[in-house]
């Protein structure tokens, strides 16, 4: 702490025009403050990169030299994951749950967010607070009745049932973020459209939705990552292996690897699960970190 403020002081000094020589002490403190940053970067990157590299190693190589660089790259692990563990089916299930879940959340959240943000009606604050407080409630209590509810609806062990559960579970967050975005849209546009004879449905679809695109994209990316990564509800609500999402398939492979030692296959499946997230993050890094930070700040 002491060191970095030191350097800041130097910055202030030099901005004021007071020429201050950069002593060895200052250089040392600059390096000293960077060292933890660099070490933490390594702590984050190394396991991830190592996991991706591991997916190209043979099992023998993982045993002989688990943390080293592979001697040769081969895709055998990916082929094994595809053939022996049907990872392709799980990949497809995860994709369906993610895409349909994100779309359903939008269809449900956008009109409600608009009504809550723009329309005046009795109980609007109450309804808004109800949605928001659901973000803080531990849902684990609800999962037991939900299990039997899905069973009665014939939606247990069914990825479409899981999709609906996912979509509803992200409603509070989505409504919260969307209302925030919509409150920044100027009211005059809707008013003039209404004077021109546009119905409220038209206003919602043709004026509000396009103007809230930025918010909609943010919410959709956040939800998609959430659904793609989700594990516990899938564990409870899915049972047969052909319905497994990626998280469950990986967990299954991991438990099997205790006995089969198919570590390479495990790394390959972890890599498969990670790649879409890495790609999304590479494209939308700012949006994702901003969306999550703002989502958390609501308290």
């Amino acid at each position, binding site marked *: 702490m002491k060191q970095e403020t030191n350097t800041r002081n130097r910055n202030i000094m030099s901005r004021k025009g007071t020429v201050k020589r950069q002593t060895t002490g200052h250089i040392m403190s600059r390096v000293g403050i960077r060292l933890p940053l660099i070490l*933490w970067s390594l702590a984050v990157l190394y*396991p991830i990169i190592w996991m991706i590299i591991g997916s190209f190693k043979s099992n023998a190589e993982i045993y002989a030299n688990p943390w080293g660089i592979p001697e040769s790259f081969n895709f055998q692990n990916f082929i094994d994951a595809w053939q022996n563990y049907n990872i392709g089916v799980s990949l497809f299930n995860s994709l369906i749950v993610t895409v349909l879940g994100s779309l359903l959340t939008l269809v*449900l959240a956008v009109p*409600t967010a608009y009504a809550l943000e723009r329309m005046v009606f009795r109980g609007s604050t109450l309804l808004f607070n109800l949605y928001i407080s*659901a973000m803080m409630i531990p849902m684990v209590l609800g999962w037991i009745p939900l299990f039997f509810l899905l069973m009665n609806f014939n939606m247990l062990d069914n990825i479409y049932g899981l999709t*609906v559960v996912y979509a509803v579970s992200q409603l509070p967050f989505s409504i919260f973020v969307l209302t925030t975005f919509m409150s920044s849209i100027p009211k005059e546009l809707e008013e003039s459209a209404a004077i021109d004879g546009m119905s409220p449905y038209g206003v919602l679809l043709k004026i509000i939705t396009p103007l809230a695109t930025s918010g909609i994209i943010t919410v959709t990316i956040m939800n998609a990552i959430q659904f793609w990564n989700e594990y516990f509800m899938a564990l409870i609500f899915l049972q047969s292996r052909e319905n497994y999402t990626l998280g469950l398939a990986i967990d299954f492979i991991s438990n099997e690897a205790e006995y089969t030692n198919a570590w390479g296959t495990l790394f390959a499946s972890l890599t498969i*699960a990670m790649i879409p997230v890495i790609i999304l993050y590479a494209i939308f890094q700012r949006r994702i970190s901003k969306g999550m930070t703002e989502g958390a700040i609501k308290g």
Partner: protein
Amino acid sequence: MVQTKKQKYLFLAFCLVPTFLLFSIFTLYPLFSGLYYSFFDWSGSAASMEFIGWGNYVRIFNDSIIPRTIMHDYFLVVTKVFGIMILATFFAVAIMQLKIKEAPFYRIIFFFPNIMSVVVIGILWTFIYNPSMGLVNSGLEFLGLGSLTRPWLGSETWALPSIVLPSIWAGIGLFMLMLMGGIGTISKSYYEAAELDGANEWQQFWKVTLPLIWPQIKVSILYIVITTLNGSFIIVQVMTGGGPNNSTHVMGSYLYQQAFVQYNFGYGAAIGVMILVLSLITIFILQIFLRRDKVQY
């Protein structure tokens, strides 16, 4: 707006009713009926459902594993709050005040684990702790500390602390960004004034930076506590499943085991009610505890 009252209400219903209906079915109803189920002895079939009043709650008080799961949850809460907040504050202050060129690099890298799947994080770290091939033990041997190697996740003493590290690893980025947002709004003139008054760097951190980012710190702590109490069981389930010998069970993973492995759904629901009550009480107490007058200079 040119529309009749009837049209307005029709549109409102169109916007609100379908969403609220699904929300009621899939969120509100399960929560309330969970409360209801907690008064039954129930193994899953409709015929086996038997009203036992407070029986499940009496059982909670007599179950010797329950106090341990509560302890484990709060152990995770406390270690995560301190671990994440100290490191995140340090990194945030370092990055913001050094004004280093590669700051965006650190932001991007540190945040990434926040969007990784808990399954991936859990399995990755299970391998890092692997007794024979894992990074931790090989690292210790490399440093000549071979005597310190142990089966981390297989040890009753070390399994729970071993779960803290991946949780901190995965959490820091988000809170670092929240604190950086706070530091970014502090006017540089405060530091210049403090400088003129002869405050050293350490005093400036305590008297200027910390009070001014208190709102962000408060929100961060609350968020860590809420997410830990409501979600720590996921990484526990992935990494240890509550073992060895219940030494890592948290309330949520114990609920899962009781309800979905041993089919004691009524008892599981009662544990769920306990989780709800404890987390609401904790948040309430914390909010009083963290209340601190807003600083204005």
